[in-house]
């Protein structure tokens, strides 16, 4: 009788396993739907742009015959739906067409530029997390003290000073004047093309190859742009951490933890922080995705051949295949990150099981 309530509880937790399959299917379905929608929108954008895709390929001085031939070859005479299906089947085969801008297959370009961004964004996010989370926590614990205010201003500067400003000043100071870090580019000029590209990420490639000189050089090149991106995401991460923490620190279970005689450290980290992990994961995933979208200006300032400047350059020169290809890849990564953060969510939060 007493334990009838307990029985109900165990009953619901048992049903968890069978619903797991359902959840996985549902997740896959929602990825598929989102990606389809994304492709549809990219396709529509490609059509909406007041730019003649044929001219982009054949050049503006092409004769009428050349133009018409290309027009037919691109299937532009077919109904829009058919064109979309063509587009869809191309994309599913990993074919994003040829970049008008550099003549290379877009997929190949993306294989080259995306790892560069991935490397930069990952280290940037790591920095943002390693600094931003403790900063947010300290700000919350010391709420309304000067520490909190300093943390706030530090974060806001990261947010509102244009990133190229920070980038250039950073370059001037740490590269130009102090010489602590490597200059723009991913590695020094001597090392260009030395390590075989396996993952496309120089840090990993050089480590795999045992080229520790190059590895060090690559580190010295990546550290500044990554710190600047890290600073940017730090701003967001620390603010969100602070507000999550404040909510937890007012919770009743924190008092319980104190009643047990736990130290402040244990109360804050083991208890309060344990409860915001889940929310933080979402925030970090979002900010990581934002960095993966490429921070155009940072990439430009640091001559970092990443996907952000790739898409932007393509946009500026109306290279729609490249734009759409880049968009689809960024979108896919984004959706995957989203799913991943959901998975981590259910891993970390017992209530989500």
């Amino acid at each position, binding site marked *: 009788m*007493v334990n009838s309530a307990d029985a*109900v509880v165990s009953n619901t937790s048992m049903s968890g396993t069978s619903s797991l399959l359902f959840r996985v299917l549902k997740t896959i379905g929602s990825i598929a739907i989102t990606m389809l929608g994304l492709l549809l929108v990219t396709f529509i954008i490609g059509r909406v742009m007041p730019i003649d895709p044929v001219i982009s390929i054949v050049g503006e001085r092409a004769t009428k015959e050349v133009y018409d031939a290309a027009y037919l070859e691109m299937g532009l005479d077919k109904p829009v739906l058919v064109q979309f299906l063509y587009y869809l089947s191309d994309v599913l085969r990993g074919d994003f067409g040829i970049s008008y801008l550099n003549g290379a297959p877009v997929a190949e370009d993306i294989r080259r530029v995306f790892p560069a961004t991935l490397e930069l964004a990952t280290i940037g996010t790591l920095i943002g997390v390693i600094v931003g989370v403790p900063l947010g926590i300290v700000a919350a614990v010391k709420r309304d003290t000067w520490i909190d205010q300093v943390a706030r201003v530090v974060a806001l500067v990261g947010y509102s000073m244009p990133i190229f400003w920070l980038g250039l000043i950073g370059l001037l100071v740490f590269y130009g004047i102090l010489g602590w870090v490597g200059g723009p580019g991913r590695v020094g000029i001597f090392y260009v093309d030395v390590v075989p590209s396996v993952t496309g990420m120089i840090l990993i490639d050089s480590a795999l190859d045992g080229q520790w000189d190059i590895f060090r050089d690559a580190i010295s090149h990546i550290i500044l742009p990554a710190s600047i991106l890290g600073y940017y995401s730090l701003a967001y991460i620390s603010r969100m951490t602070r507000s999550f923490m404040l909510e937890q620190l007012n919770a009743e279970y924190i008092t*319980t933890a*104190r009643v*047990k005689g736990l130290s402040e450290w244990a109360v804050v980290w083991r208890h309060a922080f344990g409860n915001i992990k889940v929310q933080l994961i979402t925030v970090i995933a979002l900010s990581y995705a934002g960095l993966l979208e490429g921070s155009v200006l940072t990439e430009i300032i640091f001559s970092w051949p990443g996907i952000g400047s790739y898409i932007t350059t393509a946009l500026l020169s109306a290279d729609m295949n490249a734009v759409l290809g880049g968009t689809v890849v960024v979108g896919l990564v984004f959706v995957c990150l989203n799913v991943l953060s959901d998975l981590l969510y259910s891993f970390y939060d017992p209530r989500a099981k």
Partner: protein
Amino acid sequence: MTLLDVENLCVKFPTRSGVFDAVRGVSFSLGRERLGIVGESGSGKSLTGRAILRLIRHPGVVTANHISLEGENLLQLSERQMRKVRGQRISMVMQDPKFSLNPVMRVGEQIVEACLQHEKISRNAAKLKAIEMLEAVSIRDSERVFNAYPHEMSGGMGQRIMIAMMLIPNPQILIADEPTSALDVSVQTQVLGIMDKLVRERGMGLIFISHDLNLVSAFCDRVLIMYGGRVVETCQADKLYEAKHPYTQGLLNSMPRLDTPVKRLQVLKRDASWMDGDIASDSDASGKAIGRSV
């Protein structure tokens, strides 16, 4: 023998419209006995408990002439020393189990944590102790509960877990804030039995906060009746029905009783004079102020 002696305890909260006195000069002493505190909602029962453990957070301010635990004034302890008192010497069962357990930590982990905090034993030993304790508060499926998360527990189980967690370091004093409100009547009996045993066999001091006058009069040795942040009356529990204070009488009369039906219930007529009475007003409270406890 007196375990705890509280004199002129005040808790204040600054608000926009001036300072709000939540507890106004409460004094009592606790021996190895069961002391009940009753009173209406908001009368300062829980705050009194928390203030003893110095758990009132900024901007709340606690003052008292002294809160002495076996002669040692808790108000003068450093935060570090205070942590040694909490849990080990004075423990408190929080009012709302739903919010008082960490939702992302396994129940067992939370109990073990409390145990390890004050006792240098191995993790395994702590686990055994924890399971034993869970069984003591009549949780049948203790292994499963040990590995469960709080949200998988019903309100009543949560309350028992809370009690187990607070009893495991063997405190000298237990403050139990409405520990049985979510319990089925039969489980309630068992849980009260455990506390009763600890008081009688180990000489623990128990502060038992409750709404339920019937329960308090049946279970406790002495009862404090609080109203508006003050203790308006203290009496022997079995003499509760003879209490003289109009507020206490009012409370008793306003309860519907299964055995003696009435057409209309008596309603408490609050009297402004109950707010201040024979007890010293807070203006002359000379206790040491703690700017910010915890």
